């Protein structure tokens, strides 16, 4: 089978879901089921004694692996502490490393991200860093021992799609760890394009959780990722400037 393999772990779905933005745990549950995802991100926050239900219960019921992230961290030190707390709380050394530069763009800070990645790899974590669409940084993070790289298509929650497909292709060409397109996906065609460009998986949340019908969009994303993967493996025809007849022009 055409499994996705990250750090030796196999996944038959190439759609990784986030859980942010869902109006309720019930809606999230239905969307996760429809997406077919096997790996889903959660954030770490101060425990709220008033909170009812837990995203962890939803993931456990659906038998979905949890991928904690370091969302909300602005420095390497914050991210390392958050990753250690996530490992303690959830019993997993996997972490989606996310170190944000500023609140307006939510773009990842490359310097802090690289610093945190080195420290977390040294501490035994399986590190999946969220980065800009920067081929040089992707290569450096792979060399530093990251288990995957997660370049953005566009800013988090923007739904702008893949703003620089060329850079995503450059990252894919050079990488020998999985490339997971993360952030910016707006609709199914964006997810299909990510896979056609050669990404190994797609991570998305807002496009599904804030769609008018999250369960329908989740199913669309599932099919788009599968279709894009097949198209990549099939090998698309070259683009031509002029028509090329598919049947003989003379009788």
């Amino acid at each position, binding site marked *: 089978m055409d499994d996705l393999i990250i750090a030796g772990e196999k996944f038959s779905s190439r759609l990784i879901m986030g*859980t942010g933005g869902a109006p309720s745990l019930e809606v999230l549950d239905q969307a996760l089921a429809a997406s077919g995802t096997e790996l889903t991100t959660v954030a770490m926050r101060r425990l709220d004694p008033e909170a009812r239900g837990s995203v962890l219960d939803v993931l456990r019921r659906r038998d979905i692996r*949890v991928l904690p992230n370091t969302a909300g961290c602005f420095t390497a030190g914050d991210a390392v502490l958050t990753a250690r707390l*996530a490992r303690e*709380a959830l019993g997993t050394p996997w972490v*989606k490393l996310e170190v944000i530069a500023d609140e307006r763009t939510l773009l990842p800070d490359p310097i802090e991200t690289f610093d945190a990645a080195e420290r977390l790899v040294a501490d035994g974590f399986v590190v999946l860093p969220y980065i800009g669409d920067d081929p040089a940084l992707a290569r450096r993070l792979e060399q530093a021992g990251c288990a995957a790289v997660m370049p953005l298509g566009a800013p988090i929650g923007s739904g702008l799609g893949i703003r620089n497909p060329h850079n995503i292709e450059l990252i894919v060409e050079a990488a020998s760890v999985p490339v997971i397109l993360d952030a910016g996906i707006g609709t199914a065609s964006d997810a299909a394009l990510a896979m056609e460009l050669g990404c190994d998986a797609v991570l998305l949340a807002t496009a599904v959780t804030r769609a008018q019908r999250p369960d329908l969009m989740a199913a669309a994303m599932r099919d788009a990722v599968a279709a894009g993967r097949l198209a990549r493996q099939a090998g698309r025809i070259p683009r031509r400037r002029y028509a090329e007849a598919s049947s003989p022009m003379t009788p």
Partner: protein
Amino acid sequence: MIVMINGAAHEVTDGTTVAQAVSTLTASTTGVAVAVNDEVVTRSAWETTALSDSDRVEVLTAVQGG
């Protein structure tokens, strides 16, 4: 003495442990992690780790996000 638990000041007796601090927020011990002054305290050490005056206790859990 006064300790900060998730940003709120609490008056507690000397010798209060991390486990007792956590129990002010939740009865659950799964899916929860604690840092005291930015250092993780592993679950097995909650009962035996006593807090000091002005300690900052952070009790975290997983929530929707990302």
